[in-house]
């Protein structure tokens, strides 16, 4: 791919992506509602249907969290209340979602153009010449079927995706404050992005502008964390003003922390907790959350030289192990993976991964159909296929991790370039 990107091509890409989405929205009117109902896209904490319910209650001056259906952040409500009613004038909602996708793509483009993936402050890959331009990476994101499906299904996770990508884009362009504000928004919307703060702080620290750089990492981190705390505090305050009580905390973050809604999804938690005896529930909740967060420290320390790689891998891991994952999380991970074009030759299982993910994404709906509609299968069918799906993703995470480490190792040990190694 040539790196030259003209204004015409850029506009063409964005217009193409917008037209594709708009065409699906308007020409196939059954599709948005169909996708909104799919468990692979809408989880209890991101579902558009539930948002509508919350919005209805909010517009009628009832607490949106009454009835235990709505589990999303309170600030969505005034935003969507500003738009005309989604059932009578859906076009405004469509345009909002399309705009969010395009904004995400813009952030991704910036990240790609910074070249941070191949040459960070502390590490430069010998393969850094081999990379895709921001155009290609944005196109891969915008035309990824998972991204399109998430957009059409109007899952609110697109806002989190957008915030995370902007946080990374701000960080690589040397704007720590902006990055911290963006990640606070992401964390406010979905909770799990708070786990991305440590690698993001390191990324900001590495990419500080030379003029006003803080020397030591500890004060820098302290400042960043206090920015996050301040912004989140502000957002909580706003939420309190809007809903008039602190009820939103247990209804949004509480649900994620305690997994009180066991609607099936593509993740690994729901089945496990359906089967769980009540006495073990709190213990295993602790174990699962600990497991989710334990990767943060390890990866941040091990791949200190490439904080962006840590962020990418963590997003992949969250897409597998978080309480309510959906294909939207996978699409975010898959959006960042092409940044590592330079280590693709070092990956070993690309075909297997592609095949597993493809098979799982077709067998998943088939097995869900057998379970829910045909009644000839049961929950194990769907759970089995989510296991396969997550196996595919974890293979990708492992393989990418291997490739990144191998790339680093070849710089340390130039005599080993091109030789086979074995992990023990």
């Amino acid at each position, binding site marked *: 791919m040539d790196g030259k990107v003209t204004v015409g091509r850029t506009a063409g890409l964005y217009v193409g992506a917008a037209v594709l989405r708009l065409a699906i929205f308007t020409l196939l009117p059954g599709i948005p509602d169909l996708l909104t109902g799919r468990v692979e896209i809408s989880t209890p904490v991101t579902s558009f249907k539930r948002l509508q319910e919350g919005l209805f209650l909010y517009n009628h001056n009832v607490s949106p969290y009454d009835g235990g259906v709505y589990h999303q952040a309170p600030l969505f409500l005034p935003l969507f209340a500003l738009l005309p009613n989604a059932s009578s004038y859906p076009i405004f909602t469509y345009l909002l979602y399309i705009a969010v996708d395009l904004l995400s793509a813009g952030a991704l483009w910036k990240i790609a153009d910074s070249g941070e993936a191949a040459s960070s402050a502390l590490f430069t890959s010998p393969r850094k010449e081999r990379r895709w331009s921001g155009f290609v990476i944005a196109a891969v994101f915008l035309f990824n079927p998972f991204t399109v499906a998430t957009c059409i299904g109007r899952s609110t996770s697109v806002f989190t995706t957008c915030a995370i990508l902007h946080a990374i884009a701000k960080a690589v362009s040397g704007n720590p404050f902006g990055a911290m504000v963006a990640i606070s928004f992401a964390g406010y919307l979905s909770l799990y992005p708070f786990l991305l703060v440590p690698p993001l702080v390191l990324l900001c620290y590495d990419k500080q502008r030379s003029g006003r750089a803080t020397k030591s990492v500890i004060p820098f981190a302290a400042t960043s964390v206090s920015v996050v705390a301040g912004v989140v505090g502000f957002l909580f305050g706003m939420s309190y003003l809007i809903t008039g009580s602190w009820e939103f905390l247990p209804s949004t973050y509480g649900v994620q922390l305690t997994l009180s809604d066991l609607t099936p999804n593509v993740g690994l938690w729901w089945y496990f907790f359906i089967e769980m005896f009540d006495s073990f529930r709190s213990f295993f909740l602790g174990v699962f959350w600990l497991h989710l967060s334990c990767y943060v420290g390890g990866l941040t320390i091990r791949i200190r030289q490439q904080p962006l790689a840590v962020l990418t891998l963590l997003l992949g891991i969250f897409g597998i192990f978080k309480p309510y994952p959906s294909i939207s999380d996978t699409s975010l991970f898959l959006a960042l993976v092409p940044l590592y074009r330079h280590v693709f030759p070092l990956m070993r299982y690309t075909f297997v991964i592609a095949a597993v993910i493809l098979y799982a994404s077709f*067998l998943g709906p088939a*097995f869900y159909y057998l379970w829910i509609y045909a009644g000839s299968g049961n929950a194990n069918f769907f759970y089995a296929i989510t296991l396969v799906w997550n196996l595919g993703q974890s293979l990708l995470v492992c393989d990418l991790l291997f490739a990144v480490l191998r790339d680093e190792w070849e710089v340390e040990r130039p005599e080993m370039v091109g030789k086979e190694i074995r992990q023990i």
Partner: protein
Amino acid sequence: MPSITTFNTSRARSYMVRLPLFTRLVLLAILGFWLVGLQSVWDVRQWGALIPKEMGLATLYRMNTFPFIHLNVFHAVMNLLAIVPLLERFEAEYGTLTCLGLFFGPLTTIPSILYVLVEKGLGANTAVMGASMWVFTLLGLEAMRTYKLNPNLVILGYSIPTWTTPIGILFVIAVLVPNSSFLGHAAGLGVGYVAGFGLLKYLAPPEWALRWIEGKLNLLGRLPHYVSVDQKTYGRFGVLPSSNSSTGGSGVGLGLVGTSALALRRDPRMLKVPPYISLLCILVGAVWLFLLPLNEYSRRTYISENALLPGQVHTYFGGSDQNVFRAYKQEVNALAEQGKSNTEINGKLEEIVRGLGLKTARQNFTYAAAGRTYQGENLYAILQAPRGDATEAIVLVAAWENVKKEVNRQGVPLTLTLARYFKRWSLWSKDIIILFSPDSIAGPQAWVDAYHDAHDTSRVASLPIKSGALQGAIAIDYAQEHRFQSIHVVYDGVNGQLPNLDLINSVVNIAGGQMGMGVALQEMWQHNDQYPDRLRTMLRGMLKQGLGLASGPHSSFIPYHVDAVTLQPFGEGWQDEMAMGRVVEGTFRSLNNLLEHLHQSFFFYLLMQRERFVSIGTYLPSAMLVAANFTIMAIFLWMKSGQPAETSTADIKSGSESDKSTPPPTVERELFLPIGVVILCQTVSVIPLYLFNHVPENTLTPLFGLFFLINTILPPILSNLLTTFHRPTLQQYNLIKSFSLLLLGMFLSSLATLNFSLAMIIGLLSAPLSFVKPFPNSAAARAVCFALLNAISPAAVLLAGAAYWKLSVTTILTEAAVAWHVSGTYSSVLVWCVWWPAWLAGCVTVLGRPGDKEEEKNKTKKA
């Protein structure tokens, strides 16, 4: 010791080939005793085990036989896996004769004597057998040897003596493996430790004697795999040490071992095998299908749901009801002969049903398909259950016309009579809904859709009154005027879904068992329960399932998980309409008994006779094997397309000693063009799907002709365009084929879980696509291959089907369009969007003229 992570087939094979003699003998003896243990005449275990109470002078042989005898195959295999590497090392070190002496002498007898003594002392009498005692003796020896080299293992600052490891193993095995003899293992381990302290040389036969025997008999020359006692003169294996690598596998440096998976991938033989595996998959899949009707693979049906109790009640329908039936028949005949409209007929029928005291309602529907509109009005009545709470209902359907457009002359009056009869009974616990639909496909579909609120309100009216959840439905299709012989049960649902097998079994049981009339399936009017008839029944069932069309009024119910069948009397016999009524009564009484939805029995099955079926576990592998063949080929082609890359990396690797600064140039696969071609094929496929489902009936045949023409010329055009603009390499053609087969395999394996027969049919018809390849040098081969592929194109198969069943193409295509719009049959999606694109990609591959591969190769090598 070989570990799992470094497992390598060639190395494992050479390890097996180099096993020394005594180890081999032990291995064979263990296997031999296991084989002997398979017969039941002579209990070899009782004969050879070490049983403390049985020990006497005459039974001392037990001390030497027990290690060879095992409880079962699992025990034997586990012990073999443990002992072979240990014994091999021991023998390689000490020589075959020493081993023989030790293992038929002190190393076996001492632990067993110890064991027997302790056991007697404790007053117990536990028989032991198996080679695990030897395993522990050898482990003890090994541990002592390791201890001398490496006394401590430091973990977190604590030094752990290495000789303790076998003790850990001892306890773990005692805890985890059931029926393992802790005492026996401990005795073996103790002797191992003692021997390891250096006492072994006192136990072993004197070396001079062994050497004398060896020399006299020239054992080294005569016996293969013999390990000499004398390590100095000849070397252990009789050759000089420099030319052998005695302990192969172990002790290779840690960082730089060729990963075995990669080594395997490089193996050129690996690239020859997959096409054969693929072919084998197809053959096994096809043959499997033909084995199913055999007694060994199919099962007799049985009633799984105990609540059904089919045929256990006395049926009272008959007597004066016959007069009622005649009266109703008169009315219906009058309606039929006057050629009244649908609404008028419903008016008359409603009047009758109202007269019975049932609530009635009507529903309008309009469907448009293939340029025609199908409209009509359903009439239905609800008989409220005297003993129920209107939460559940069963449906009795009588369509005015059956699928062959014959008026249901007996079925409608019979349904009216049954409604009158049912009304008099007080035992119903579920509501009974009587449905009169104008036709057999659209009417019931509209009604069921509306019942479940899944209808399109612009075409289908909502139902004014409803009852509870539908538990089952029986449709009566009784157009023949004379007496009948048997009942034909039609059970195929839309998209190949089937009702629960219990429902069919109940009908078979009631009609065949209680009423004494025959039951036929799949239009097999005569069935002798022999292989050909069974096979024919099964294949007919599969074909119907694969087409996924609605086959009667019951078909529309099945997608809503309402089990339903149509009963169709046929033949010349002495059964009258009252017998038919009793069959329905019996079935309704059974359904009335249900405590919950039918769920016990199978939803996926193939019936081959009324009392014989195969379930999904038995038949699914055949479709999965056929689907797997595509995936195997896809993976194979992917590997093959990466092959030049692999060789060049190997070249670089060997050359890298001289030139370390060059980074490895990995030859990458050119993915964009193949992905583009496959996506193009998939996208184009939407066009025929849309056209064939949306053009009016009279243009279907010309459209098909046009399509057939385009279908023939499209692949050459596409291929020429590709060659002109891109000149794809062989690698790219392989990748096109790989991706298209991957998609095909994926779609088919997903489909096999939903509609087995369709997956099987498409899989078999597209099986040749696995084996097509470009012919760079022969235009003739290209043309022949393309012609052959054309013979199995979806369009050609459709034509052949039309010719075979003597149907016109228009009929088939209209039927498909109607099924698509009315019943929601998705078979056409599979044909146009799965099969056709795969076929198209296959044709492009066949017609491909790949660019010069050698040239490409040379270029990359130079780079």
